[in-house]
């Protein structure tokens, strides 16, 4: 899932300064699961914002709405009647959701209330770890299901570097060295031959905006254009 983190409160306050009626918009999918921008977090943020306005002469008003997915038009449509009543939107979705919301309501300023941090996993309640950088050319078959692009601090494809500290990464004693893990798991599976060969330079396919149309749908969108 996509993991996000709420921005510092002062930064959020600064972003919406001067607006009088603000709708806080949550998303019910990834950011809800990672406890950053679901319905509950929308309620908490709106309450904090209201409280901070108490001493103002003309306190701003805050509405709340959470849709199932901000990255999906179908769900954004639910906001069509509501948005015109507000002069700014404060989105708690990931960066993609925020942009799709802004695209749907181009006349209304949209501000982010979270920083989108990574694609990751849920280790335990409230504890998330990055696992994928969406580089566009997956090497997990070679590396025993451990991503060197993400998990190695230098994104090495022919690791480990000379800085390993025991089995930890040179940048952080609490972060296991990705290549140490890759080595151990491949050894355990008897597949070290996978990394004996030199892995050539990566084809970084994520260096420009991308569009993906799944096979079977090409015709549909070609004719639509």
């Amino acid at each position, binding site marked *: 899932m996509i993991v996000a983190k709420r921005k510092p409160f002062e930064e959020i306050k600064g972003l919406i300064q001067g607006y009088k009626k603000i709708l806080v918009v949550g998303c019910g999918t990834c950011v809800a699961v990672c406890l950053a921008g679901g319905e509950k977090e929308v309620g908490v943020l709106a309450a904090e914002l209201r409280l901070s306005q108490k001493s103002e002469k003309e306190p701003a008003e805050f509405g709340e709405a959470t849709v199932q997915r901000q990255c999906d038009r179908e769900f954004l449509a639910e906001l069509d009647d509501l948005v015109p009543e507000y002069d700014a939107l404060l989105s708690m979705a990931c960066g993609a959701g925020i942009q799709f919301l802004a695209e749907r309501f181009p006349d209304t300023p949209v501000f982010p209330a979270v920083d989108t941090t990574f694609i990751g996993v849920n280790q335990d309640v409230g504890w998330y770890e990055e696992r994928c950088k969406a580089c566009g050319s997956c090497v997990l078959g070679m590396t025993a299901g451990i991503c060197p692009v993400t998990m190695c601090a230098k994104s*090495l*494809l*022919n690791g*480990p*570097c*000379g800085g390993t500290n025991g089995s930890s990464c040179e*940048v952080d004693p609490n972060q296991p060295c990705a290549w140490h893990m890759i*080595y151990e798991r491949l050894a355990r599976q008897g597949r070290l031959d996978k990394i004996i060969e*030199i892995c050539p330079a990566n084809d970084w396919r994520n260096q420009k905006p991308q569009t993906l149309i799944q096979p079977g749908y090409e015709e549909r969108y070609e004719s639509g254009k």
Partner: protein
Amino acid sequence: MKSGSKLEKILSAGHFAFTGELGPPRGANLEAIQKKAGHLKGVVDSVNITDNQTAVVRMSSWAASILAIQEGLEPNYQMVCRDRNRLAMQSDILGAYALGIRNMLCLSGDHQQFGDHPQCKGVFDIDSMQLIMAVKEMRDGKFINGQEIDEPPRMFIGAAANPFAEPFEWRVYRLAKKIKAGADFIQTQCIYNMEKMREWVKRARDMGLTEKVYILAGITPMKSLGMARYMKSKVPGMDVPDEVINRLKGVEKKKQGQEGIAMACEQIQEFKEMKGISGIHLMAIEWEHRVPEIAEQAGMLPRPEV
């Protein structure tokens, strides 16, 4: 000859090579380079010019390499993968060669988090293995993308090896990969754990690797007990056994530097005899002025003329 560099000539003639290190200044300070170079001239066969070492901004390694040439030294131009993408790397290599640089050392580089601009974006477009391969392909006349180069840069290609970092069993295979990628010579991490080093060299010999590549053993004399403790606990990938610490502890503070040099000389003696070791890479960090005396004491002088 692959490059015709002095280092290549020394090694291919079967001489025991001796290389040094020069860290470029943190400013456009020509004098600093001249001063360091003065200590090394005639004492080492080639001098490594570090590339933003420990991720701290310094004068660029190719520029400092050219200045070293002007001072009568042969540079070993270091390049790390942290600060440049493959376009910048290849163009710098072309320029470096055109200006007379003939040796290169290809490294991953310390992570930017350790340096003086920890907020920067690390590039790591290619890794050190792929850089070695690229320099080799360029020497053979092709860019990374397979396109032809009109005048190939014919570098003598160096790579690093750390015999001490985990997983130990894998280190010799990684050496094999670097040789396969195109490394002509290897400079190792600073060696303090001789037992482990002997084992690593033995494994490399058993796999026939020492026949295919020149290995220069990395030596950094300890200046003091404090430095030894720092190296042991703070420097990534460093293996400093307790014997080293204890030996320095055994002498009074004023004499610790001398003891460090004595230890380094003992190591050099052993490496001179060790099958599979072709030379010494002396990294006397901010101790360039002591290099002539270390070289003398270790019996590395005079250097052969080639």
